[in-house]
């Protein structure tokens, strides 16, 4: 058997179509010819797809006892709205506590900056900051006319 004949038989060898005699001849040639041996190894890398007649070997599967019935919980994340669980009471307690703390902190921050007057009368009776400044004898006198500015 020469190299050409040997390489022509690779596919038949892989597909189990070669006779035992022909198979033995190819194997003997591959042992004696380094180039054909290398060619066979290259052929073997794609042969499982290109030259196999049988079903591909199964991928790793879940064994029968470990399998369970389909449930919505098995659905992928993109279907999550359908499989959403009911929030537990414990989660509600935590969320309520967080909301209460937030409201209280906001209130404290607001009232510490500005205390609003209750009524219009109280508002008017309270001296404003300008009045306090005018009443202060140590406060600088503010210019009121153009002559004041000139002086």
């Amino acid at each position: 058997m020469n190299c050409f004949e040997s390489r022509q038989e690779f596919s038949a060898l892989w597909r189990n179509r070669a006779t035992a005699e022909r198979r033995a001849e190819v194997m003997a040639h591959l042992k004696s010819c380094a180039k054909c041996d290398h060619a066979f190894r290259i052929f073997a890398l794609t042969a499982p797809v290109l030259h196999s007649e049988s079903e591909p070997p199964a991928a790793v599967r879940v064994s029968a006892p470990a399998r369970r019935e389909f449930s919505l919980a098995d659905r992928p994340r993109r279907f999550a709205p359908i499989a959403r669980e009911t929030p537990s009471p414990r989660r509600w307690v935590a969320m309520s506590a967080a909301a209460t703390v937030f409201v209280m902190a906001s209130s404290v921050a607001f009232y510490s900056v500005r205390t609003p007057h209750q009524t219009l009368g109280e508002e008017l009776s309270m001296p404003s900051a300008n009045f306090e400044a005018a009443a202060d004898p140590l406060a600088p006198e503010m210019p009121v006319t153009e002559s004041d500015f000139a002086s």
Partner: protein
Amino acid sequence: MTDKPDEELIAEVLAGQTDSFSELAARHRQRVERLCRRFFSDEEMARDIAQESFIRAFTALATYRAEMPFGGWLRAIVVNLCYDELRRRRRRPEELVGDFSAPEVQWMQLVNGATPEQIVGEAEERRESYNLAHRLLDTLKPEDRMVMVLKESEELSVSEIAETLGWSEAKVKIRAFRARQALRKQAERILAAEGRTR
């Protein structure tokens, strides 16, 4: 399953006995699915395309001409669907990435070091041999892969491939040459890289 020839079943379907198509499909299903698996490693995808092929065949059955065998006509439908899917994926020819899984590396070691008899015997048992072969074929352009599968797997002649794909024979020959060159280059790299690591 009856012993009626395909043509008789087709005539029955066209006459309104649509149930006869089930038998026609059952007769060709295994071959169609095997062809799809040569293009796609994903079993789901292969089954979907096989199913789609039968639907297309059913809807276009009136256009079938008895001059060619039904199997060949159906194969043309399957091949064109697979080609469309390969192009739709826009799988550009890419370099084989070196992140092989441990079983794939073991398979490469076996291919590099074991006897040819051991390689043939082990390939049937190892899923990784199938996965690695698909990864190698994924590096080809869709056109090159079509020719490679039809020539090597389906053992079609150049003229038959040209007729199936609607290409010129020259184009088929060029694609076949380029596909073989590209595959050999990638396979050489794998074997050389594996040899260096030992």
